[in-house]
Protein backbone atom coordinates (compact mmCIF):
# COMPACT_ATOMS: atom_id res chain seq x y z
CA UNK A 1 0.00 0.00 0.00
CA UNK A 2 1.33 3.41 -0.90
CA UNK A 3 1.75 5.89 1.93
CA UNK A 4 1.35 9.57 1.34
CA UNK A 5 4.44 11.66 1.54
CA UNK A 6 3.47 13.17 4.88
CA UNK A 7 2.64 9.78 6.38
CA UNK A 8 5.94 8.44 5.18
CA UNK A 9 7.74 11.31 6.77
CA UNK A 10 6.04 10.92 10.13
CA UNK A 11 6.52 7.15 10.13
CA UNK A 12 10.16 7.72 9.43
CA UNK A 13 10.48 10.20 12.26
CA UNK A 14 8.75 7.76 14.58
CA UNK A 15 11.22 5.06 13.61
CA UNK A 16 14.10 7.36 14.50
CA UNK A 17 12.66 8.09 17.94
CA UNK A 18 12.14 4.38 18.61
CA UNK A 19 15.70 3.64 17.57
CA UNK A 20 17.04 6.35 19.86
CA UNK A 21 15.00 4.99 22.74
CA UNK A 22 16.31 1.47 22.08
CA UNK A 23 19.90 2.72 22.17
CA UNK A 24 19.32 4.55 25.46
CA UNK A 25 17.61 1.55 27.04
CA UNK A 26 20.34 -0.81 25.88
CA UNK A 27 23.04 1.40 27.38
CA UNK A 28 21.09 1.86 30.60
CA UNK A 29 20.69 -1.88 31.08
CA UNK A 30 24.13 -2.99 29.96
CA UNK A 31 26.13 -0.44 31.90
CA UNK A 32 27.24 -1.33 35.38
CA UNK A 33 26.22 1.88 37.12
CA UNK A 34 27.83 1.08 40.45
CA UNK A 35 31.13 0.46 38.72
CA UNK A 36 30.80 3.65 36.67
CA UNK A 37 30.01 5.64 39.79
CA UNK A 38 33.06 4.30 41.62
CA UNK A 39 35.33 4.79 38.62
CA UNK A 40 34.32 8.29 37.56
CA UNK A 41 32.34 10.01 40.31
CA UNK A 42 33.98 9.24 43.62
CA UNK A 43 33.15 12.30 45.71
CA UNK A 44 35.89 11.70 48.29
CA UNK A 45 38.51 11.59 45.54
CA UNK A 46 36.96 14.65 43.90
CA UNK A 47 37.16 16.55 47.19
CA UNK A 48 40.88 15.74 47.47
CA UNK A 49 41.50 17.51 44.16
CA UNK A 50 40.60 20.85 45.66
CA UNK A 51 41.94 23.48 46.12
CA UNK A 52 45.04 22.60 44.08
CA UNK A 53 43.14 21.77 40.92
CA UNK A 54 41.98 25.41 40.87
CA UNK A 55 44.89 27.29 42.43
CA UNK A 56 47.61 25.41 40.54
CA UNK A 57 46.26 23.43 37.60
CA UNK A 58 43.47 25.65 36.29
CA UNK A 59 45.59 28.73 36.90
CA UNK A 60 48.49 27.31 34.87
CA UNK A 61 46.23 26.21 32.04
CA UNK A 62 44.86 29.75 31.82
CA UNK A 63 48.32 31.33 32.04
CA UNK A 64 49.83 29.08 29.34
CA UNK A 65 46.85 29.59 27.06
CA UNK A 66 46.87 33.36 27.53
CA UNK A 67 50.61 33.61 26.86
CA UNK A 68 50.37 31.46 23.75
CA UNK A 69 47.31 33.27 22.47
CA UNK A 70 48.88 36.71 22.91
CA UNK A 71 51.98 35.69 20.99
CA UNK A 72 49.92 33.83 18.39
CA UNK A 73 47.69 36.85 17.81
CA UNK A 74 50.65 39.19 17.35
CA UNK A 75 52.47 36.79 15.04
CA UNK A 76 49.25 35.97 13.22
CA UNK A 77 48.54 39.62 12.46
CA UNK A 78 52.07 40.18 11.14
CA UNK A 79 51.88 37.01 9.04
CA UNK A 80 48.48 37.98 7.66
CA UNK A 81 49.84 41.35 6.54
CA UNK A 82 52.85 39.61 5.01
CA UNK A 83 50.52 37.26 3.15
CA UNK A 84 48.77 40.28 1.62
CA UNK A 85 51.94 42.25 1.02
CA UNK A 86 52.98 43.36 -2.44
CA UNK A 87 56.55 42.29 -1.64
CA UNK A 88 57.14 38.77 -3.01
CA UNK A 89 59.53 37.35 -0.38
CA UNK A 90 57.20 38.42 2.43
CA UNK A 91 54.33 36.58 0.79
CA UNK A 92 56.40 33.47 0.19
CA UNK A 93 57.74 33.40 3.74
CA UNK A 94 54.28 33.82 5.27
CA UNK A 95 52.82 31.22 2.95
CA UNK A 96 55.56 28.72 3.79
CA UNK A 97 55.30 29.36 7.54
CA UNK A 98 51.54 28.94 7.57
CA UNK A 99 51.52 25.77 5.48
CA UNK A 100 54.38 24.27 7.50
CA UNK A 101 53.10 24.90 11.00
CA UNK A 102 49.45 24.28 10.21
CA UNK A 103 50.40 20.85 8.97
CA UNK A 104 52.31 19.71 12.07
CA UNK A 105 50.84 18.20 15.22
CA UNK A 106 51.17 20.53 18.19
CA UNK A 107 52.99 17.74 20.03
CA UNK A 108 55.89 17.84 17.57
CA UNK A 109 56.13 21.60 17.86
CA UNK A 110 56.34 21.29 21.65
CA UNK A 111 59.11 18.72 21.40
CA UNK A 112 60.96 20.85 18.84
CA UNK A 113 60.84 23.94 21.06
CA UNK A 114 61.22 22.33 24.47
CA UNK A 115 63.59 19.47 23.75
CA UNK A 116 65.11 20.56 20.44
CA UNK A 117 66.31 24.03 21.33
CA UNK A 118 68.80 22.92 24.04
CA UNK A 119 70.14 20.27 21.66
CA UNK A 120 70.41 22.57 18.65
CA UNK A 121 71.88 25.47 20.64
CA UNK A 122 73.88 23.93 23.50
CA UNK A 123 73.57 25.73 26.85
CA UNK A 124 70.55 27.70 25.67
CA UNK A 125 67.76 27.09 28.12
CA UNK A 126 64.64 29.11 27.56
CA UNK A 127 62.62 29.62 30.72
CA UNK A 128 59.88 27.02 30.77
CA UNK A 129 57.04 29.51 30.39
CA UNK A 130 58.80 31.06 27.41
CA UNK A 131 59.12 27.63 25.76
CA UNK A 132 55.41 26.98 26.28
CA UNK A 133 54.52 30.44 25.04
CA UNK A 134 56.64 30.02 21.91
CA UNK A 135 55.27 26.54 21.16
CA UNK A 136 51.62 27.53 21.64
CA UNK A 137 52.27 30.82 19.85
CA UNK A 138 53.63 29.00 16.81
CA UNK A 139 50.72 26.56 16.82
CA UNK A 140 48.06 29.26 17.03
CA UNK A 141 49.72 31.92 14.86
CA UNK A 142 49.59 29.73 11.75
CA UNK A 143 45.82 29.33 12.16
CA UNK A 144 45.12 32.90 13.16
CA UNK A 145 47.16 34.30 10.27
CA UNK A 146 44.79 32.65 7.79
CA UNK A 147 41.73 33.76 9.76
CA UNK A 148 42.90 37.36 9.99
CA UNK A 149 43.87 37.42 6.32
CA UNK A 150 40.38 36.30 5.36
CA UNK A 151 38.97 38.95 7.69
CA UNK A 152 41.04 41.69 6.09
CA UNK A 153 39.93 40.60 2.63
CA UNK A 154 36.33 40.58 3.78
CA UNK A 155 36.41 44.33 4.53
CA UNK A 156 34.66 46.01 1.59
CA UNK A 157 37.03 47.66 -0.89
CA UNK A 158 34.99 50.83 -0.68
CA UNK A 159 36.31 51.36 2.85
CA UNK A 160 39.88 51.54 1.61
CA UNK A 161 38.92 53.73 -1.32
CA UNK A 162 37.07 56.11 0.96
CA UNK A 163 40.02 56.31 3.35
CA UNK A 164 42.44 56.91 0.48
CA UNK A 165 40.23 59.64 -0.97
CA UNK A 166 40.40 61.40 2.39
CA UNK A 167 44.12 61.54 1.86
CA UNK A 168 45.22 58.68 4.12
CA UNK A 169 48.35 56.76 3.26
CA UNK A 170 47.80 53.03 2.47
CA UNK A 171 49.49 52.09 5.74
CA UNK A 172 47.34 54.43 7.80
CA UNK A 173 44.20 53.25 6.01
CA UNK A 174 45.15 49.65 6.81
CA UNK A 175 45.85 50.35 10.49
CA UNK A 176 43.02 52.72 11.32
CA UNK A 177 40.26 51.61 8.94
CA UNK A 178 40.73 48.05 7.69
CA UNK A 179 42.27 46.14 10.61
CA UNK A 180 39.72 47.28 13.23
CA UNK A 181 36.86 46.19 10.97
CA UNK A 182 38.62 42.97 10.01
CA UNK A 183 39.15 42.26 13.68
CA UNK A 184 35.46 42.57 14.37
CA UNK A 185 34.76 40.09 11.59
CA UNK A 186 37.25 37.53 12.86
CA UNK A 187 36.33 37.69 16.56
CA UNK A 188 34.18 34.52 16.45
CA UNK A 189 36.82 32.33 14.78
CA UNK A 190 39.45 33.75 17.16
CA UNK A 191 37.31 32.66 20.11
CA UNK A 192 37.25 29.23 18.48
CA UNK A 193 41.03 29.25 18.25
CA UNK A 194 41.25 30.17 21.94
CA UNK A 195 39.20 27.07 22.78
CA UNK A 196 41.52 24.93 20.68
CA UNK A 197 44.56 26.45 22.36
CA UNK A 198 43.17 25.82 25.84
CA UNK A 199 43.19 22.13 25.01
CA UNK A 200 46.59 22.25 23.34
CA UNK A 201 48.10 23.73 26.50
CA UNK A 202 47.86 20.22 27.96
CA UNK A 203 51.00 19.39 25.97
CA UNK A 204 53.11 21.41 28.39
CA UNK A 205 53.82 18.16 30.25
CA UNK A 206 56.40 17.30 27.59
CA UNK A 207 58.76 19.91 29.00
CA UNK A 208 58.95 18.33 32.46
CA UNK A 209 57.05 19.78 35.38
CA UNK A 210 57.57 20.67 38.99
CA UNK A 211 54.40 20.33 41.08
CA UNK A 212 53.78 24.08 40.87
CA UNK A 213 53.98 24.04 37.06
CA UNK A 214 51.38 21.37 36.38
CA UNK A 215 48.41 22.29 34.25
CA UNK A 216 45.05 20.51 34.33
CA UNK A 217 45.79 17.45 32.21
CA UNK A 218 49.11 16.68 33.86
CA UNK A 219 47.71 17.43 37.32
CA UNK A 220 44.88 14.96 36.86
CA UNK A 221 47.19 12.27 35.53
CA UNK A 222 49.41 12.67 38.56
CA UNK A 223 46.36 12.53 40.80
CA UNK A 224 45.45 9.19 39.21
CA UNK A 225 48.47 7.70 40.94
CA UNK A 226 47.06 8.48 44.36
CA UNK A 227 43.44 7.72 43.58
CA UNK A 228 41.70 4.51 42.74
CA UNK A 229 39.54 5.14 39.70
CA UNK A 230 39.36 7.93 37.17
CA UNK A 231 37.62 10.66 39.15
CA UNK A 232 40.58 13.11 38.88
CA UNK A 233 40.18 13.09 35.10
CA UNK A 234 36.50 13.94 35.43
CA UNK A 235 37.35 16.85 37.75
CA UNK A 236 39.96 18.14 35.32
CA UNK A 237 37.52 17.73 32.44
CA UNK A 238 34.94 19.84 34.27
CA UNK A 239 37.60 22.51 34.87
CA UNK A 240 38.35 22.61 31.13
CA UNK A 241 34.65 23.04 30.46
CA UNK A 242 34.56 25.93 32.94
CA UNK A 243 36.89 27.71 30.52
CA UNK A 244 35.64 26.47 27.17
CA UNK A 245 31.85 26.61 27.55
CA UNK A 246 31.76 30.34 28.42
CA UNK A 247 34.09 30.90 25.48
CA UNK A 248 31.76 29.11 23.11
CA UNK A 249 28.75 31.03 24.44
CA UNK A 250 30.76 34.22 23.88
CA UNK A 251 31.57 33.02 20.38
CA UNK A 252 27.91 32.41 19.57
CA UNK A 253 26.98 35.86 20.91
CA UNK A 254 29.67 37.44 18.76
CA UNK A 255 28.46 35.55 15.71
CA UNK A 256 24.93 36.82 16.28
CA UNK A 257 26.21 40.34 16.69
CA UNK A 258 28.66 40.47 13.80
CA UNK A 259 27.28 37.83 11.46
CA UNK A 260 28.85 34.45 10.97
CA UNK A 261 32.30 35.96 10.49
CA UNK A 262 34.86 34.25 8.34
CA UNK A 263 37.04 31.33 9.07
CA UNK A 264 40.21 31.09 7.07
CA UNK A 265 42.00 28.74 9.41
CA UNK A 266 39.24 26.23 9.72
CA UNK A 267 38.81 24.03 12.75
CA UNK A 268 41.12 21.16 13.43
Amino acid at each position, binding site marked *: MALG*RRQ*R*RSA*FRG*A*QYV*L*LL*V*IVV*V*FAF*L*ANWGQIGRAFFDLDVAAQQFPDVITVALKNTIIFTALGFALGLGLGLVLALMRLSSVGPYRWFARGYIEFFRGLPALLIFLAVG*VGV*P*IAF*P*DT*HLPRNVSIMVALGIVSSAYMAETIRAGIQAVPRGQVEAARSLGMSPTRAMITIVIPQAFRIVLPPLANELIMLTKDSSLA*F*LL*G*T*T*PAQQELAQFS*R*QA*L*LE*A*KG*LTPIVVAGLCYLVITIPLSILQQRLEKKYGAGVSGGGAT
Partner: protein
Amino acid sequence: MARGPQLKALALIPALALAAAALTACGGDGGGTAAGGVQLIASGKLTTCTHLPYQPFQVKQGDKIVGFDVDLVDLVAKKLGVQQNIVDIAFENIESGEAMNSGQCDLAAAGMTITDKRKQKFDFSEPYFEATQALLVKAGSPIKDFSNVAGKKIGVQSATTGADYAKENAKGAEIVTFDDLALEEQAVKNGTVDAGVNDNGVLYDFVKTNPDTAVVKEFKTNEFYGIGVKQGNSALVTAINDTLKAAVSDGTYASIYQKWFGKAPTWLPGNPTQ
Protein backbone atom coordinates in the same frame (compact mmCIF):
# COMPACT_ATOMS: atom_id res chain seq x y z
CA MET B 1 10.89 7.16 -4.97
CA ALA B 2 11.24 10.74 -3.79
CA ARG B 3 14.69 11.97 -2.90
CA GLY B 4 13.89 13.05 0.63
CA PRO B 5 13.28 9.68 2.25
CA GLN B 6 16.26 8.19 0.49
CA LEU B 7 18.58 10.78 2.02
CA LYS B 8 16.95 10.27 5.38
CA ALA B 9 17.46 6.55 5.06
CA LEU B 10 21.14 7.27 4.55
CA ALA B 11 21.10 9.38 7.69
CA LEU B 12 19.78 6.37 9.56
CA ILE B 13 22.87 4.34 8.77
CA PRO B 14 25.11 6.01 11.39
CA ALA B 15 22.35 5.64 13.98
CA LEU B 16 22.04 1.96 13.20
CA ALA B 17 25.80 1.60 13.34
CA LEU B 18 25.77 3.24 16.76
CA ALA B 19 23.08 0.88 17.99
CA ALA B 20 25.03 -2.09 16.68
CA ALA B 21 28.14 -0.77 18.39
CA ALA B 22 26.25 -0.37 21.64
CA LEU B 23 25.05 -3.93 21.47
CA THR B 24 28.45 -5.36 20.68
CA ALA B 25 30.64 -3.05 22.77
CA CYS B 26 29.75 -4.82 25.96
CA GLY B 27 30.07 -8.23 24.37
CA GLY B 28 33.12 -7.78 22.19
CA ASP B 29 35.78 -10.44 21.93
CA GLY B 30 34.88 -12.66 24.82
CA GLY B 31 38.58 -13.41 25.24
CA GLY B 32 39.72 -16.94 25.74
CA THR B 33 40.97 -19.46 28.19
CA ALA B 34 44.53 -20.73 28.01
CA ALA B 35 46.29 -23.67 29.60
CA GLY B 36 45.88 -23.91 33.38
CA GLY B 37 42.46 -22.25 33.34
CA VAL B 38 43.95 -18.77 32.82
CA GLN B 39 41.40 -16.30 31.44
CA LEU B 40 42.83 -14.05 28.71
CA ILE B 41 41.23 -10.87 27.35
CA ALA B 42 41.92 -11.91 23.74
CA SER B 43 41.94 -15.54 22.73
CA GLY B 44 45.31 -16.95 21.66
CA LYS B 45 47.13 -13.85 22.94
CA LEU B 46 48.79 -12.87 26.18
CA THR B 47 48.33 -9.08 26.15
CA THR B 48 51.10 -7.21 27.95
CA CYS B 49 50.87 -3.53 28.87
CA THR B 50 54.09 -1.58 29.11
CA HIS B 51 55.36 1.96 28.82
CA LEU B 52 58.06 2.52 26.24
CA PRO B 53 60.91 3.22 26.23
CA TYR B 54 62.47 1.44 29.20
CA GLN B 55 65.68 0.02 27.90
CA PRO B 56 66.78 -2.74 28.35
CA PHE B 57 63.53 -4.04 29.85
CA GLN B 58 61.16 -2.91 27.12
CA VAL B 59 62.42 -1.15 24.00
CA LYS B 60 61.35 -0.83 20.41
CA GLN B 61 63.81 -2.34 17.93
CA GLY B 62 62.74 -1.96 14.33
CA ASP B 63 59.10 -2.98 14.31
CA LYS B 64 59.39 -5.24 17.34
CA ILE B 65 59.48 -4.63 21.07
CA VAL B 66 62.33 -6.47 22.76
CA GLY B 67 63.96 -6.57 26.16
CA PHE B 68 64.51 -8.42 29.42
CA ASP B 69 60.82 -8.19 30.39
CA VAL B 70 59.72 -9.28 26.91
CA ASP B 71 61.88 -12.42 27.07
CA LEU B 72 60.53 -13.36 30.50
CA VAL B 73 56.88 -12.83 29.56
CA ASP B 74 57.50 -14.81 26.37
CA LEU B 75 58.29 -17.76 28.64
CA VAL B 76 54.92 -17.27 30.35
CA ALA B 77 53.16 -17.06 26.97
CA LYS B 78 54.92 -20.26 25.89
CA LYS B 79 53.72 -22.01 29.03
CA LEU B 80 50.16 -20.90 28.28
CA GLY B 81 50.51 -21.93 24.65
CA VAL B 82 49.77 -18.43 23.29
CA GLN B 83 51.58 -15.50 21.65
CA GLN B 84 52.60 -12.39 23.55
CA ASN B 85 51.11 -9.12 22.27
CA ILE B 86 52.62 -5.92 23.72
CA VAL B 87 50.67 -2.67 24.08
CA ASP B 88 52.35 0.65 24.89
CA ILE B 89 50.29 2.89 27.21
CA ALA B 90 50.91 5.74 29.66
CA PHE B 91 52.67 4.50 32.78
CA GLU B 92 50.08 6.18 35.02
CA ASN B 93 47.45 3.79 33.64
CA ILE B 94 49.60 0.83 34.60
CA GLU B 95 50.63 2.22 37.97
CA SER B 96 47.04 2.97 38.98
CA GLY B 97 46.04 -0.58 38.01
CA GLU B 98 43.47 0.83 35.58
CA ALA B 99 44.97 -0.95 32.58
CA MET B 100 44.72 -4.43 34.10
CA ASN B 101 41.54 -3.96 36.13
CA SER B 102 39.59 -2.56 33.19
CA GLY B 103 40.70 -5.44 30.96
CA GLN B 104 42.97 -3.51 28.60
CA CYS B 105 45.63 -6.14 29.12
CA ASP B 106 46.29 -9.38 30.97
CA LEU B 107 49.45 -8.28 32.68
CA ALA B 108 51.83 -5.34 32.96
CA ALA B 109 55.56 -5.89 32.55
CA ALA B 110 57.20 -2.49 32.61
CA GLY B 111 60.24 -2.65 34.87
CA MET B 112 57.77 -2.00 37.67
CA THR B 113 58.79 -2.05 41.33
CA ILE B 114 56.56 -3.89 43.78
CA THR B 115 55.24 -1.36 46.32
CA ASP B 116 52.57 -1.49 49.00
CA LYS B 117 50.69 1.36 47.38
CA ARG B 118 50.53 -0.48 44.06
CA LYS B 119 49.64 -3.76 45.78
CA GLN B 120 46.40 -2.15 46.97
CA LYS B 121 45.35 -1.53 43.36
CA PHE B 122 46.38 -4.75 41.62
CA ASP B 123 48.22 -8.05 42.21
CA PHE B 124 51.89 -8.78 41.64
CA SER B 125 53.83 -11.86 40.65
CA GLU B 126 56.85 -12.95 42.72
CA PRO B 127 59.81 -10.53 42.30
CA TYR B 128 61.78 -11.16 39.10
CA PHE B 129 64.54 -8.52 39.22
CA GLU B 130 66.45 -6.63 41.90
CA ALA B 131 66.68 -2.90 41.22
CA THR B 132 68.42 0.04 42.84
CA GLN B 133 67.98 3.74 42.21
CA ALA B 134 70.84 5.46 40.42
CA LEU B 135 71.90 9.06 39.87
CA LEU B 136 72.64 10.20 36.32
CA VAL B 137 74.67 13.39 35.71
CA LYS B 138 76.66 14.98 32.92
CA ALA B 139 80.24 13.71 32.90
CA GLY B 140 82.38 15.95 35.11
CA SER B 141 79.44 17.30 37.12
CA PRO B 142 80.21 18.27 40.74
CA ILE B 143 77.13 16.34 41.84
CA LYS B 144 78.17 12.94 43.23
CA ASP B 145 75.20 12.15 45.46
CA PHE B 146 72.35 13.99 47.20
CA SER B 147 74.68 15.93 49.53
CA ASN B 148 75.06 19.06 47.39
CA VAL B 149 71.88 19.27 45.36
CA ALA B 150 70.18 22.19 47.14
CA GLY B 151 68.80 24.59 44.53
CA LYS B 152 69.62 22.17 41.71
CA LYS B 153 67.08 20.67 39.33
CA ILE B 154 66.68 16.91 39.53
CA GLY B 155 64.76 15.13 36.80
CA VAL B 156 62.54 12.17 37.64
CA GLN B 157 60.12 10.03 35.67
CA SER B 158 56.43 10.38 36.38
CA ALA B 159 54.91 7.75 38.65
CA THR B 160 58.18 5.91 39.38
CA THR B 161 59.72 4.83 42.67
CA GLY B 162 62.76 6.93 41.71
CA ALA B 163 60.49 9.99 41.76
CA ASP B 164 59.35 9.17 45.29
CA TYR B 165 62.92 8.47 46.40
CA ALA B 166 64.20 11.79 45.04
CA LYS B 167 61.35 13.75 46.62
CA GLU B 168 62.19 12.25 50.01
CA ASN B 169 65.98 12.32 49.88
CA ALA B 170 67.14 15.13 47.57
CA LYS B 171 66.92 17.86 50.18
CA GLY B 172 66.34 21.35 48.80
CA ALA B 173 66.40 20.25 45.16
CA GLU B 174 63.73 21.23 42.65
CA ILE B 175 62.12 18.03 41.38
CA VAL B 176 61.17 18.14 37.69
CA THR B 177 58.83 15.37 36.51
CA PHE B 178 59.15 13.98 32.98
CA ASP B 179 56.67 11.78 31.29
CA ASP B 180 59.04 9.12 30.12
CA LEU B 181 62.55 7.86 30.57
CA ALA B 182 63.86 9.20 27.26
CA LEU B 183 62.69 12.76 28.00
CA GLU B 184 64.31 12.58 31.43
CA GLU B 185 67.61 11.25 30.04
CA GLN B 186 67.67 13.88 27.29
CA ALA B 187 67.06 16.63 29.85
CA VAL B 188 70.13 15.50 31.83
CA LYS B 189 72.20 15.19 28.65
CA ASN B 190 71.34 18.67 27.36
CA GLY B 191 71.55 20.35 30.75
CA THR B 192 67.88 21.21 31.24
CA VAL B 193 68.19 19.51 34.63
CA ASP B 194 71.37 18.95 36.66
CA ALA B 195 70.79 15.29 37.46
CA GLY B 196 68.30 12.50 36.98
CA VAL B 197 67.12 9.66 39.20
CA ASN B 198 65.90 6.38 37.79
CA ASP B 199 66.48 2.64 38.02
CA ASN B 200 70.02 1.35 37.65
CA GLY B 201 69.30 -1.01 34.77
CA VAL B 202 68.03 1.66 32.40
CA LEU B 203 70.56 4.35 33.33
CA TYR B 204 73.58 2.05 32.88
CA ASP B 205 72.16 1.19 29.51
CA PHE B 206 71.94 4.90 28.61
CA VAL B 207 75.47 5.68 29.77
CA LYS B 208 76.80 2.89 27.54
CA THR B 209 75.72 4.81 24.44
CA ASN B 210 76.13 8.36 25.87
CA PRO B 211 79.66 8.70 27.24
CA ASP B 212 79.07 12.41 28.02
CA THR B 213 76.89 11.30 30.92
CA ALA B 214 77.72 9.17 33.94
CA VAL B 215 76.03 7.22 36.70
CA VAL B 216 77.76 8.47 39.85
CA LYS B 217 75.82 6.76 42.61
CA GLU B 218 73.56 3.82 43.33
CA PHE B 219 71.17 3.95 46.24
CA LYS B 220 70.31 0.51 47.58
CA THR B 221 66.58 0.82 48.10
CA ASN B 222 65.64 -2.82 48.43
CA GLU B 223 63.38 -2.70 45.40
CA PHE B 224 62.22 -5.57 43.28
CA TYR B 225 60.38 -5.64 39.99
CA GLY B 226 57.18 -7.62 39.68
CA ILE B 227 54.65 -8.32 36.96
CA GLY B 228 51.29 -6.65 37.55
CA VAL B 229 48.07 -8.60 37.14
CA LYS B 230 44.40 -7.72 37.57
CA GLN B 231 43.26 -7.95 41.18
CA GLY B 232 42.09 -11.49 41.92
CA ASN B 233 43.46 -13.15 38.78
CA SER B 234 45.32 -15.76 40.81
CA ALA B 235 45.46 -18.32 37.98
CA LEU B 236 47.67 -15.99 35.93
CA VAL B 237 49.84 -15.06 38.94
CA THR B 238 50.43 -18.76 39.58
CA ALA B 239 51.33 -19.33 35.94
CA ILE B 240 53.87 -16.48 36.04
CA ASN B 241 55.41 -17.65 39.32
CA ASP B 242 55.73 -21.25 38.10
CA THR B 243 57.39 -19.98 34.91
CA LEU B 244 59.90 -17.92 36.93
CA LYS B 245 60.73 -20.88 39.16
CA ALA B 246 61.30 -23.14 36.17
CA ALA B 247 63.42 -20.47 34.42
CA VAL B 248 65.67 -20.13 37.46
CA SER B 249 66.19 -23.88 37.90
CA ASP B 250 66.96 -24.62 34.24
CA GLY B 251 69.26 -21.60 33.83
CA THR B 252 67.05 -19.70 31.33
CA TYR B 253 66.74 -16.74 33.73
CA ALA B 254 70.51 -16.43 34.07
CA SER B 255 71.05 -16.57 30.32
CA ILE B 256 68.37 -13.93 29.64
CA TYR B 257 69.93 -11.73 32.36
CA GLN B 258 73.37 -12.18 30.81
CA LYS B 259 71.97 -11.30 27.38
CA TRP B 260 70.52 -7.93 28.48
CA PHE B 261 72.85 -6.78 31.25
CA GLY B 262 76.12 -8.36 30.14
CA LYS B 263 76.77 -9.90 33.56
CA ALA B 264 75.56 -12.79 35.67
CA PRO B 265 72.70 -12.03 38.06
CA THR B 266 73.69 -11.50 41.72
CA TRP B 267 70.12 -12.12 42.83
CA LEU B 268 67.71 -14.74 41.53
CA PRO B 269 63.91 -14.93 41.77
CA GLY B 270 63.15 -17.02 44.83
CA ASN B 271 66.13 -15.62 46.78
CA PRO B 272 65.36 -13.65 49.94
CA THR B 273 64.38 -10.05 49.25
CA GLN B 274 65.96 -8.47 52.29
